[in-house]
């Protein structure tokens, strides 16, 4: 049986030979593939791992929760509110974007402008990026949307966080507001959070001065994205650190009372604890609603704020500069007594005017006050008396005394935008006008006119210093985060005690002695009596013609030209605890609305007595449940 012929045998041998060669080739190719794997995975593995990571992991910032701001009793003045909003994810809107937005428009009102904005945002983003249709919805709107949601594809309700100022205008100048970071903000601050869409930073007030503490630090969310940039899942999340909560020295109830009392006046009021300098109320009217800036102020609203002649955007309490007028007289008296320029017994005869060089300096009282000593000089606010005091003291003495009472420099309150005011002196005049100081100008300075400019807060500080005999300075921040700064022991006011006593006696007389300029509006409740000093500041130069014809009565002038009404006070007289300053721009001086306001406020604050009440201490501020902070 011929199984193999010889030829078949030889081809079998050839096949085997060639198969072995083929096998070798296969082995070699597999070897090369193995080497290539080694090169890719072992030698260059780290590089490729990095590339894969870059490919698939996207790092996103998570905005930290902004710290809240409380008053001294734990009332939330600035907080974070749930922002109910509705978003659209274009690629998920199966019936089309227009259809989806129309449907939403049937549930909540959308203007044509809203629609334009939405369509623009959608066009500028990728199809899977959520775009805001509407935010700051009410709970009812939000609930209705959620009810309809099953029928709306691509529409996504969402709860974000937004800043909220529950008391609106009342605290606008203290708290300031938050708004989106501007280009220049982003250049000066390298925090990447600023570039986050929708992120808000403090633009004014405490929100600005404590921006760093309130902001907290950014969290980081590492998300896995696919090749198209769509987020697949969150890999890790570091929520960052929420901003520190801040406790102010303010008493919200008092603030409310003060602002309501100020009414429609263009007015600034400060109320302080004379022992510590804690600012209990600080208001400037009119204010503005800080919530407007957060959600985006309209052109019309912004223009309205700018055009208002009562200047709602300016914080008059800190940055309004006014000639102090007669409210400056306690400072001049104190300086003169302390320097020995006068004694409490020093007296002049007021005939209604004082001739000095070529000028005649008038007293506010045409007929004159007659015999005036220091006490009467203060209680009846005799200008001629203080012209004489000023002459004896000299501008250098006035300047030094005023500085010691806190004028001419910032008080250092923790709110940005405070101005220093002006206490004129020889050097100051030389530097400002390049001219020599004139003796006549000393007389003007002695009654708080001329170059002297002060802020309402400085006036309140002066009042507090006289009342307490201590070198108090206003402060409004009590606690930031967990720790309050220890309060340094306050040094005594650098004036002789006898001088302070004499001035206090005069200020007591202003309100509590018949003939005192504020007697008609004093606090009559026993034990609550206030001491104070009235003042008015001329806004216009009184012309020569007017001098001759007699000065026009203030009330008959147009609002803009009327004098400012000022009043500084403290109470109770016996053991002062509260100081107050009131400045009413172009106020009706005849009725002394400034004194009336101070009277009501000082009576209210004494009866409420916020300093004696235990303030809330932020024991559970950070680290614990933040919703429990209100004690």
């Amino acid at each position, binding site marked *: 049986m011929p199984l193999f012929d010889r030829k078949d045998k030889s081809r079998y041998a050839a096949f085997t030979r060639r198969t072995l060669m083929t096998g070798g080739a296969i082995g070699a190719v597999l070897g090369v593939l193995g080497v290539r794997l080694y090169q*890719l995975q072992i030698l260059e593995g780290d590089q490729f791992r990095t590339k894969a990571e870059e490919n698939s992991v996207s790092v996103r910032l998570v905005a930290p929760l902004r710290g809240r701001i409380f008053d001294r009793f734990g009332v939330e003045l600035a907080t974070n509110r749930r922002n109910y909003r509705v978003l659209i994810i274009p690629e998920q809107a199966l019936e089309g974007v227009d259809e989806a937005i129309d449907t939403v428009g049937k549930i909540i009102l959308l203007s044509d402008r809203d629609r334009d904005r939405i369509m623009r945002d959608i066009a500028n983003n990728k199809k899977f990026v959520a775009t805001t249709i509407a935010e700051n919805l009410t709970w009812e709107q939000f609930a209705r949307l959620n009810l309809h949601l099953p029928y709306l594809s691509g529409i996504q309700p969402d709860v974000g966080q937004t800043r909220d100022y529950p008391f609106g205008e009342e605290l606008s100048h203290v708290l300031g507001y938050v708004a989106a970071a501007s280009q220049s903000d982003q250049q000066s601050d390298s925090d990447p959070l600023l570039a986050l869409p929708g992120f808000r930073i403090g633009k004014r007030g405490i929100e600005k001065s404590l921006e760093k503490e309130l902001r907290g630090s950014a969290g980081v969310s590492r998300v896995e*994205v696919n090749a198209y940039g769509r987020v697949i899942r969150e890999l890790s999340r570091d929520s960052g650190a929420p901003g520190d909560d801040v406790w102010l020295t303010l008493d919200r109830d008092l603030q409310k009372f003060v602002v309501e009392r100020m009414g429609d006046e263009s007015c600034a009021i400060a109320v302080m604890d004379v022992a510590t300098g804690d600012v209990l109320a600080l208001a400037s009217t009119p204010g503005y609603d800080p919530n407007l800036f957060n959600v985006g102020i309209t052109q019309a609203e912004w223009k309205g704020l700018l055009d208002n002649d009562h200047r709602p955007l300016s914080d008059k309490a800190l940055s309004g500069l006014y000639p102090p007028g007669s409210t400056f007289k306690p400072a001049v008296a104190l300086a003169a007594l302390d320097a020995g320029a006068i004694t409490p017994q020093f007296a002049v005869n007021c005939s209604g005017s004082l001739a000095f060089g070529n000028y005649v300096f008038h007293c506010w009282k045409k007929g004159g006050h007659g015999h005036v000593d220091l006490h009467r000089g203060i209680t009846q606010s005799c200008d001629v008396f203080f012209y004489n005091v000023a002459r004896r003291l000299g501008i250098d003495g006035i300047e030094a005394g005023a500085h010691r009472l806190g004028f001419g420099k910032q008080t250092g309150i923790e709110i940005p935008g405070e101005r220093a005011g002006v206490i004129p002196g020889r050097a100051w005049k030389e530097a400002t006008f390049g001219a020599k100081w004139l003796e006549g100008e000393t007389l003007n300075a002695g009654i708080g006119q001329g170059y002297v400019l002060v802020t309402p807060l400085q006036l309140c500080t002066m009042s507090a210093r006289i009342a307490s005999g201590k070198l108090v300075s206003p402060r409004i921040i009590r606690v930031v985060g967990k720790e309050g700064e220890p309060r340094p022991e306050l040094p005594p006011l650098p004036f002789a005690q006898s001088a302070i006593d004499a001035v206090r006696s005069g200020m007591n007389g202003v309100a509590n002695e018949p003939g005192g300029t504020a007697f008609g509006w004093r606090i009559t409740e026993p034990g609550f009596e206030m001491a104070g000093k009235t003042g008015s500041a001329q806004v216009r130069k009184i012309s020569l013609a007017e001098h001759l014809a007699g000065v026009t009565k203030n009330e008959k002038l147009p609002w803009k030209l009327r004098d400012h009404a000022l009043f500084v006070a403290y109470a109770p007289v016996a053991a002062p605890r509260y100081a107050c300053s009131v400045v009413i721009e172009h106020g009706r001086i005849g009725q002394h609305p400034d004194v009336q306001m101070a009277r009501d406020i000082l009576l209210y604050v004494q009866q409420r007595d916020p300093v004696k009440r235990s303030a809330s201490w932020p024991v559970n501020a950070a680290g614990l449940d933040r919703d429990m902070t209100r004690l």
Partner: protein
Amino acid sequence: MTTSYVMSRRGVGWTDKLLLVHWPLLLLITVIASIGFAMQYSMAGGHLYPWAAPQIMRFAVGFVLLLAVALVDIRVWLALAYPAYLISFLLLVAVEIVGHVGLGAQRWLEIGPLQIQPSELMKISLVLALARYLHGLALDDVSKPHRLAVALIMIVLPAALVLKEPNLGTATIILADGFSLLFLAGLSWWWILPAVGGVVGAVPVAWHFLHDYQKQRVLTFLHPQNDALGAGWNISQAEIAIGSGGLAGKGFVHGTQSRLNFLPEKNTDFAYTALGEEFGFVGSVALLALFAIVMYFGVRIATQSRSQFGRLVAMGITLNFFFYIMINAAMVMGMIPVVGIPMPLISYGGTAMLTVMFGFGLLMSVHVHRHVELPRSSGGII
């Protein structure tokens, strides 16, 4: 006389033949296919659907097909070799005429509910037909010009048709299969060496005849960074996927590249990258090692066969399997241009799975019938 000799004379029952099946090879194939299922499962983000479950179903069908093919007498396959080739060739022509345009290429032919890819059929048919033709030639005859010319026509004609579809990858494999068989049949070095020289010299000429997209692939391959987000995307992302696996990989279902769609066609042609990413160097080399053992079994089966037809078929199937692996692995590792060649048993795809399993069936048939002696003049039996 051995039992197998008796078998060759009288034939035995199919249950007896089952015992003769190369079970270790079958087990190995199942293990490799299971790795494929795992990768399909992983790339779906840890889900059986849409890929793993259908792939398992196809493998089950392929498994039965393999056994059925294995049990068919090798003489039947000898007899069917030319008809199969003829049918495949006609289908290739048909695809050219009425071909269904899919993926930008005419590759599919729909006959009733069936979608067939004649180029896949041709790979098997060519191995069978060429083995049969060479089986009938004595060693000296192989190198005779008129005999060689017939063999070359059998190889080049279908390759040309497939290239025209256009399907460069499959055409390359058809050519490689064919020339390999000529080489194994003992073609004289006097033919081989000048031919290799000629091919090298003809590369610039061939370039001229390539499709634009084929040229683009070659250019992209040579300079992937020129087009990192366009056509170079596949290559660079595949390298990143494999490379980022490192030594031990990112872990099962933890590959980011493949799962997050950075790789187009991740589950088909680029499935091997997912393995490299998730199981690292260890896993990639292990799979190559399993493939190597499969090929070792293939070569053993070939050399143990007592018929030239059996030997050539076994080697043809083994090499076909090898060319798939080589081209696919080299492609995803950025060593050769991107061509649409799947990784056998790993990549997702029905036709490829069935073709591979049918091929293994033939290899198994050679093994089962290894003692069957076929005279050179035998035309087989049906």
